[in-house]
């Protein structure tokens, strides 16, 4: 893996550095040029999704400052909650349009299967984050959603550990565990896109000899 001259004893640091530096081709972490075929508005929905994630997390950070029940008693808190809700709707809308585009472009071609997989996992993890968010509203919707969801989760034997009737647990999943999950997977997804580059057009394939 390492092509750089090594010291007599290869260090862990060197190994990690070499691994990292080979993750993305040289100059492709933040390139200022793209293949000429990247010329369609469909391509902006990935970055719109990422921007949406930033606004979701940003509004979530402000909500965290006021606390879990701030939005019930403060009009500013309620407004921030509204920003959080609408940015989530925009985030999901852009992510799904991005998914549609990537499907019709068969964007998994050229060893990009893992990019597709991480995208799907990001989608699922986001659904989980949104779900725990709905449980965290501390209002009637939370009561009803938790009462219904418990039946689904209990039916597959997971309810003892993932207790949707426990807001103290669901809040932590919503603000710590699942955002971390979405963030890590999003980073992996974007690194993979930079690693392989944007998928070339369908029909440009060459037959191997």
């Amino acid at each position: 893996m390492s092509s750089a001259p090594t010291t007599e004893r290869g260090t862990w640091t060197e190994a990690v550095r070499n691994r990292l530096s080979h993750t993305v081709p040289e100059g492709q972490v933040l390139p200022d040029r793209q293949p000429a075929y990247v010329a369609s508005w469909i391509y902006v929905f990935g970055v719109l999704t990422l921007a949406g994630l930033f606004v979701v997390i940003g509004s979530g950070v402000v909500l965290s400052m006021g606390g879990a029940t701030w939005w019930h008693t403060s009009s500013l808190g309620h407004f921030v909650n509204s920003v959080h809700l609408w940015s989530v709707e925009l985030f999901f809308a852009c992510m799904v349009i991005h998914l549609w585009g990537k499907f019709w472009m068969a964007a998994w071609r050229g060893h990009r299967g893992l990019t597709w997989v991480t995208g799907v996992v990001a989608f699922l993890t986001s659904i989980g984050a949104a779900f725990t968010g709905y449980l965290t509203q501390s209002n009637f919707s939370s009561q009803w959603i938790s009462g219904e969801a418990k039946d689904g989760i209990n039916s597959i034997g997971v309810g003892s550990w993932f207790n949707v009737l426990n807001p103290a647990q669901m809040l932590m999943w919503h603000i710590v565990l699942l955002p971390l999950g979405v963030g890590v997977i999003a980073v992996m997804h974007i690194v993979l896109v930079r690693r392989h580059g944007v998928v070339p057009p369908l029909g440009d394939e060459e037959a191997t000899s």
Partner: protein
Amino acid sequence: MTTLQHRRRETPDSHDYPTRSYDLVKEFVIALALVTGLSLVLAGIFSSPDDPSITMSGWAKAAPSDVVATAAGELAGTTTSATYGAPYNHASEGQSVLGLKLQKWGGVGIPVNSADLVLQPLRGVAGDPRTALALAAWDAMSPTQQTQAATAYADALAKAPDGDPTAVAAGNYGPVPALAQAFLRLAQSGGLEGSLTSSGTFYGGDQTRSMLLLADGAYLEDTAVADHLGGDQWGMMNEVGNYPGQPWMWLYTFWYQVKPFSTSENADAQVWMLMMGLTLVLMFLPWIPGLRSIPRWIPVHRLVWRDHYRRRSS
């Protein structure tokens, strides 16, 4: 994989193509400004719903007969929570799918005694001789006698016009009517708030027992159905009022609307397994023959790369 029938088509390296200038950072900043602006505008115009929680006293004031019936049902062991199975008790094997008894295998990790949902708050009441006497009478009965009396009262309530406790037929119900009425009084007074959550611990945080009690009544579901949030109303997708819901849940909730799931006792486990399968199909689409070729057969991509194809052919 390379076979004798055809050679594998290799996708070219994207880095081998001619390039054009493309400012990714500027694109991100514009996207961020756009999404931030849209979020602020939408939030300003449409806001977000905050439908107040159903409190125990609110439930008791809006639907007192429902509270009494629920209390009787908990004592009789006939409520949803009392007959649930894992993770709350062993009363039922719960749901299974494809012969897998997943619910039962999960185990009773959150033990809840449904009768105690009623009895524990009542035992905490001080200075009410009527309730103390009713509790003493209840404790003096054998489990069989308790079940008989409570079941008889619950059945009688169901037969009474509008479930009105004052219109119940005379019968041998033991201390059950007194216990149910005491429970209603406790709820109406506000004494039940937090009683099943933080009683004895101060801080609480886990609403499991309070929610199970509330969900054992009809008022919670009636309120939800009036808001079009019921399970057979595509409720998983919906929000109260005209607010946007969760459109991405469309396929998950769809199955609950159609047979065999709509009439199945194992619907939750079955729908979960079906959706897990479909999710895996989506995830591994790149490797599924046929499905992965749909983009070639239906050439939406010709719109995306029309400039490229035009350049290539000229």
